[in-house]
């Protein structure tokens, strides 16, 4: 297999945007091309677009050709949309990676885009139910927060994780996103404000949840040989893993406080990269809810099982700690435009590893991980490195 690198990256601003689906993806695409002046849309041989809900939120399917036409790309090696709920973006990066590694294409763009906010917010909330099992979950009114709240309830009962520890994760990520000009939330939040914010699904309060966000993200991947021609600072994909253990809450691994599918995906990615967790300088993890970040510390091997709460409380996941987790502010701080999130994590890895992350730069960042999930039993892990 050939080595594959990111050579360009760009984001739209994330938030409640006065912009349509096509405008958001155009914004990210333009920013991405601007980051790599030697590459034009006509150089792009393949395009993969991660998008989850355009059929409901934009009355639009047929997404990859729409995106290609918008950006003046005429794919000749690969054109596809990926839909894997919240992990769609990372799944798209894996497709592009595999195509290039196998020699089927040399230069592929991956876009992730979502327009979730609608004039009728009830409709926006209802649409989120399309991501769970309609017949056995959405029919009860389930969306993501209560599912992750069940994990939080069991983690608190089994390991003594506290509401304050959940809140500390939220404070950290909002502090990080205050240094991110693309983030949905840039004002930070205090511990008091988090624990006093309104209850969404017990024990998860407003600031412990990622918001409903519009946004888009883009990266360009190339074979090592082509990458060296395009940039002095390619960012290599060193490892990747994906595991799916279950879809519906009734069918997941039985202990919702443990996510063995994440451990499995991470183990495969570490093995491929030839590293251990302790080698990581930073990690962008899928903090859709604060409990998810705490469980991620454990399943990714940053601490032992059950120690995720203290790991956050002791600052070990912050600057100056063991590993900086979610330097861009994660999903809680940046927002979670479903299909864009995994690609945006890749964008952050690109900036961090090139020393271009501005105020939130992790010092001496050589290797980092991204983790993107689409439910408690479905995980994607990527490892990126300078070399």
């Amino acid at each position, binding site marked *: 297999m050939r080595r594959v690198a990111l050579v360009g990256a760009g984001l739209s601003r994330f938030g409640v945007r006065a912009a349509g689906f096509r405008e958001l993806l155009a914004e990210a695409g333009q920013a991405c091309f601007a980051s790599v002046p030697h590459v034009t849309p006509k150089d792009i041989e393949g395009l993969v677009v991660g998008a989850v809900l355009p059929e409901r939120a934009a009355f639009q399917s047929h997404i990859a050709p729409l995106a290609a036409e918008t950006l003046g790309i005429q794919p000749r090696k690969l054109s596809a949309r990926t839909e894997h709920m919240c992990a769609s973006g990372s799944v798209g990066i894996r497709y592009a990676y595999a195509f290039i590694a196998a020699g089927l294409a040399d230069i592929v763009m991956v876009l992730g885009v979502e327009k979730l906010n609608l004039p009728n917010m*009830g409709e926006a909330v209802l649409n*989120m139910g*399309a991501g769970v099992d309609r017949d056995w979950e959405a029919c*009860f*009114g*389930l969306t993501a927060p209560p599912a992750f*709240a069940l994990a939080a*309830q069991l983690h608190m009962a089994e390991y003594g994780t506290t509401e304050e520890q959940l809140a500390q994760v939220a404070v950290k990520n909002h502090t990080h996103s205050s240094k991110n000009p693309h983030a949905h939330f840039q004002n930070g939040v205090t511990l008091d404000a988090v624990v006093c914010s309104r209850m*969404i*699904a017990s024990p998860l309060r407003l600031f412990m949840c990622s918001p409903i966000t519009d946004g888009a993200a883009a990266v360009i991947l190339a074979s090592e040989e082509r990458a060296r021609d395009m940039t002095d600072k390619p960012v290599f994909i060193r490892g990747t893993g994906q595991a799916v253990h279950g879809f519906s809450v009734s069918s997941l691994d039985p202990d919702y406080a443990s996510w063995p599918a994440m451990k499995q995906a991470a183990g495969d990615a570490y093995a491929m990269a030839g590293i251990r967790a302790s080698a990581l300088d930073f990690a962008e993890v899928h903090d859709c809810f604060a409990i998810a970040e705490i469980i991620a510390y454990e399943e990714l091997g940053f601490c032992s099982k059950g120690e995720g709460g203290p790991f956050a409380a002791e600052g070990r996941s912050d600057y100056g700690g063991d590993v900086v987790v979610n330097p861009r502010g994660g999903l809680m701080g940046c927002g979670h435009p479903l299909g864009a999130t995994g690609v945006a994590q890749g964008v952050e890895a690109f900036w961090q590893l090139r020393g271009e992350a501005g105020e939130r730069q992790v010092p001496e960042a050589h290797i980092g991980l991204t983790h993107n999930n689409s439910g408690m039993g479905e995980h994607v892990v990527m490892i990126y490195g300078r070399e």
Partner: protein
Amino acid sequence: MSEYFRAIDPFPLQSSKNTRLTPFYEALRSQKLLTTFCPRCALRHWPPRVVCPECLAARLDWVDLPSRGTVHAYTIQDTGVPPGFPRPLIFAVVLVEGLRIFTRLVETEPTQVERGCTVRLCPSAVGWDPEGDERYVPTFALVQENA
């Protein structure tokens, strides 16, 4: 086009024109809980399956489940409830003879729910399908002796 038009809702179509699981929904209407059983694997499923995920057999039997279970985990959602659903929503994972059943508790005071408490099947009507057939979902309710 001035009025909001909704072509589809989050409730499954339950009539025999639309699914092979109609026996489940017919039983539910008479307050009974059924699920599928694979004779080849001697395995009960939840939720009911159209094919056994262990052996891929499509010939499955319907078996009765008890209508009572215990709450393994629960959460109460106050905010962000989708339109058309009551507030608050009480979601629970209910253990019924070793099967984990994700459901919602109805006719239940949220403050009375605890892990381990007993619940009973209490199906909820969720409105007619486009052909006029009434639909139900398998909600549960707290058994009052808990209180």
